[in-house]
């Protein structure tokens, strides 16, 4: 399969937007959430997204020899699985370790379950734990960012193995150099877009019901431009295989 350079740039740009957009869905509360003062997972935006993305990248790369749709689905599943289990266990700690009810002070009722929130929020805090709406939002975020990383990985891998320098050696079925380089490239794309998204979020976000979610278009624009540039670098990387 020969990948057109423009398709590679386009795939990386779309992948970057999916990562950057996905980060906006992931409920993170940063340092306040780590001491049960804000709703969401108690860590930084970029780091949680990257952690999920890494699992997605591992599962996507395990499917390297498969067609595009399977690589993307595997990436999304891995990423969403990591975020899902992490949020679930995070809630265990909130409920049984800290003794508080998952609730948010940003909405009066959970948009999905319609549970009332304000009565369950500790006075003086902005909520704590991960209520259902944040949980579902986080799963969506994991899926999107996993899809994005896998998309970039797949297209760069197939661009690279078409060149003599990275071609699959005879007797093998995967080019290790191309897989590692494409994996590192996807890793870089993850960090660039998740940091851009976290600058846009500026600290904490609870998911798609958070007022800050309206800032998504700005981040999408920034991510698509930045990722297209990174994609252009990917095209240059492919040129390096001509030896």
């Amino acid at each position, binding site marked *: 399969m020969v990948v057109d350079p423009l398709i590679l740039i386009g795939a990386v740009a779309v992948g970057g937007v999916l990562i950057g957009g996905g980060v906006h869905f992931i409920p993170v509360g940063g340092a306040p959430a780590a001491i049960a003062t804000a709703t969401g997972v*108690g*860590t930084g935006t970029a780091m949680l997204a990257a952690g999920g993305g890494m699992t997605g990248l591992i599962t996507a790369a395990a499917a390297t020899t498969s067609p595009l749709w399977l690589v993307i689905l595997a990436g999304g599943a891995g990423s969403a699985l990591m975020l*899902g289990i992490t949020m679930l266990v995070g*809630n265990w700690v909130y409920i*049984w370790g800290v003794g508080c009810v998952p609730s948010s002070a940003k909405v009066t009722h959970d948009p999905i379950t319609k549970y009332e929130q304000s009565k369950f929020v500790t006075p*003086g805090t902005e909520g704590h734990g991960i209520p259902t709406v944040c949980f579902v939002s986080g799963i969506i975020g994991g899926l999107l960012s996993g899809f994005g990383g896998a998309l970039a990985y797949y297209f760069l891998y197939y661009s690279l193995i078409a060149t003599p320098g990275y071609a699959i050696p005879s007797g093998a079925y995967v080019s290790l150099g191309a897989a590692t380089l494409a994996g590192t490239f996807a890793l870089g794309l993850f960090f660039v877009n998740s940091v851009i998204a976290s600058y846009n979020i500026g600290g904490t976000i609870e998911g798609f019901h958070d007022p800050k979610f309206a800032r998504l278009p700005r981040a999408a624009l920034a991510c698509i431009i930045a990722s297209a540039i990174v994609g252009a670098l990917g095209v240059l990387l492919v040129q390096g295989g001509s030896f």
Partner: protein
Amino acid sequence: MADPIIAGLGVVALMGAAATISGAAEDLESDVGSMSNPNSQVQLAPQMGNLHRIFNKAVSGEPVQMGTMAGIAGSVAFVLLSLNLPVIMALAGGAAFAALIHTTFATTSHLGRTVSVSKFGQPLFLDVVTEHLGPIAGHGFIVTFTIIGVSYLMTLPIQGFAHPFPLPMLAVLWGITIGAIGSSTGDIHYGGEREYQQYPFGGGIPVRIHGDITRKAELGARNSLDAVNFCAKYGGPVTGFCFGAIVFFSFWSTVVGGIFGSVTGTILPGNSDSNTALAVGTTILFIIIILIIIINNRMEVFARNKYGPYLK
């Protein structure tokens, strides 16, 4: 020759067990050092007039720290494996080297942050540094050893594994993941409960008491070893469960899916057989994800009914 799927499941179980130990040790390591997000309160305390004897390990976020340490351990283990050392020795050697590097980063961050709040009179206690370094390095060793163990198993040419990424890279990726997990789960037990233990159980930490951390133990001043004694009872084990479950289930797509065909990573070409297997495996993952959403919702309902609303 054993059935490859049974063999694969055995390896996955071993990896899950290693990952469980890894996750528990990672959380406890971050509690001994007081790092990541809860450390913001330790950092804030002197400013609020609360001097303390808690370790202040501000080595970036946990994901970057654990990614670096696991990456170093994985790379050194890779070097030792290339010298044809026995696998277990190579992995231990890599982890031991990473543990040494870990202590230098821990020391410099405690010195750096403590001295940078000297304005508020926070003294630099040298015994705080020396008595915490051992447990930090020890827990770090367990984490990196198990992470590179998992990564090594993934690269073996077994059906369902044979991952195309090399050992050092897998170590970095899993290191970043374990750091993200540790700071999202177990750390809350340290930050939300242990740091504020003088306040009643059962609620979040209001903004007005931020920085008023618990500084005294049953006898004398509290140090971070007291924190780890407490968190080892809940925060650490659940973090271990979390990472273990992630590693265990993320291989179901290739191993359990393998019942419907052979998914073989780098050792055989992809074909329609392996595609069916992967599709089934990925579907299993999606079913697990939906189950997790339902379980979480049940837990939320349980907490609402059990604890009830706050009384005015």
